[in-house]
């Protein structure tokens, strides 16, 4: 299973999303969520959203190992 994390404004769209999912790439995660969470998937598809796997920035086609943490990161606003 893959652990899902949604930060910033993405978290507001992901309140009811399960904490884990079965998927082989981030793109597959997005595809699996599209039926039940269309508003979230629309937000995830914004070009500014970054994906990290185990805290490293990756692309949508990154192969996922079982137990990976996949996080979706909107543009940062610290400082």
């Amino acid at each position, binding site marked *: 299973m893959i652990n899902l994390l949604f930060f*910033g*404004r993405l978290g507001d769209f992901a309140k009811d999303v399960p904490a884990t999912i079965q998927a082989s790439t981030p793109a597959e995660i997005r595809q699996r969520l599209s039926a039940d969470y269309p508003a979230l998937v629309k937000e995830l598809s914004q070009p500014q959203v970054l994906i990290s796997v185990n*805290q490293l920035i990756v692309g949508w086609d990154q192969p996922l190992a079982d137990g990976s943490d996949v996080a979706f*990161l909107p543009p*940062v*606003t610290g*400082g």
Partner: protein
Amino acid sequence: MNSIRIQPDDFDLTHEYQQLRELSSTVGAVVTFVGLVRDFEADSTIDSLSLQHYPGMTETLLQEIVDQANKRWNLIGSSVVHRVGELLPTDQIVFVGVASQHRADAFEAAQFIMDYLKTRATFWKRVSQDGKQSWVESKDSDAHATARWDSNND
């Protein structure tokens, strides 16, 4: 010393400065920056601000930024403190301090670290205005400030 701390607690500017000042007798310049919580966002006053981050990844990204600064400038030490959790207008939110032999290194490195922190480090601000909460949008001006360093490569 390159210290990176993410904490809910406030920090003491004098203490942070002393830590950098006392690193070595070769320290000839210390530049410090403190960011505060403004009482307005998008032309409207705010009641409070909440800061979220991605534990672990934030520290790693900040370390990478500090490592880059150390490659570009001749630094003796640096310190970054960023607060998370609930903050109020006028609260201190971020500290960046840099110690070097000569002032130009410390001035430029402090600005570089802040510019990259604003656009790379995984923090997200949410403001409360009139009882409503909203996430702060990223600013183009911050991206431009960071891009400036890319075109300025040594």
